[in-house]
C-alpha cells in the first residue's frame, strides 16, 4: 500500500509501519464477530460445571472459534502493546527488548491456548 515513490526512496521511520497499521485493522475487524461470539458463549456457560465446559470447548465449531479468537487476539495485542512501548519507552535497547519480549509472550500464550483447545477437541485422558 506504499506509494511507488515512497518505496523507491525508501525513507520513513522503520519502513514497516504500513504493514503494522493494516494488520492491526484486519485483526480488529476479525475480532468484532469473534469477541461478540465469545461473550455470547461465556454467557451461556455462566455457572456451567467442568464437564459441560470441557465438552463445549472440544466441539468442532467452538474449538475453531476459540482458536481463531486466540490468534486474532494475541496478534492484535502484540501490535497494540508494541505501539504503547514505542510511545513510552525511550531507550532504544529497552524498547527493542520489550517489543521482542511482548512478541514472545503473545506467541507463547496463543500457542498454549490453541494446544489446550486442541487437547479438548481431539481428546486426551483426564
Amino acid at each position: 500500500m506504499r506509494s511507488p515513490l515512497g518505496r523507491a526512496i525508501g525513507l520513513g521511520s522503520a519502513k514497516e509501519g504500513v504493514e503494522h497499521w493494516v494488520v492491526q485493522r484486519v485483526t480488529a475487524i476479525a475480532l468484532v464477530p469473534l469477541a461478540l461470539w465469545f461473550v455470547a458463549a461465556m454467557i451461556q456457560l455462566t455457572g456451567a460445571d467442568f464437564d459441560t465446559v470441557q465438552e463445549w470447548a472440544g466441539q468442532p465449531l467452538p474449538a475453531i472459534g476459540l482458536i481463531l479468537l486466540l490468534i486474532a487476539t494475541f496478534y492484535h495485542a502484540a501490535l497494540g502493546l508494541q505501539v504503547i512501548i514505542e510511545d513510552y519507552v525511550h531507550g532504544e535497547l529497552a524498547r527493542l527488548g520489550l517489543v521482542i519480549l511482548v512478541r514472545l509472550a503473545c506467541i507463547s500464550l496463543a500457542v498454549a491456548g490453541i494446544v489446550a483447545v486442541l487437547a479438548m477437541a481431539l481428546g486426551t485422558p483426564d
Partner: protein
Amino acid sequence: MRSAERPLSPHLQIYRWQLTSVMSILHRAAGLALCAGSVLLVVWLVAAALGPEAYRGVQNFLGSGIGVALLLGWTAALFYHLCNGIRHLTWDTGHALDLRSTYIGGWVVVLATAILTAAAWAAGISHWVFNFASGF
C-alpha cells in the same frame, strides 16, 4: 541561550478534560486491561484441558469477589474497546472526522458500552441461576 524564558507548550494537566481525549486514553487503557484478560482466557482454557482439579482452582478465583470484579471490569473494557474500535475504523475510512461527529460517536460508544455490559451481565446472571437450578 535564554531557553528558560521561552514560552513552553502547556503540559497535559493544563488542558481541560474533553470527551474525545478521555476516550482516546481509555481506549488504550482498555486495550491493556484486555491483554491481562486474554492471559486469563488462556489460563482458563489450559485449566479446562488439564482436568477438574486445575479447573476448580481457576473457577474458585473467578467466583471470588476479586474475580467477579475483574470479570465485570473486563466485560466493560471489552465492549468499550470493541465499540470505540469500530469508531476508529470508521475514522480510518475518512468518515465522521468533524468535531460534531466525534462527540456524537463518542457518546454513542459510552452509551453502547453501558447497555451491552449491563445486558451481558443480566443474561449471564440469568444463565447462572438456570445452570445452578438445573444442577439439582
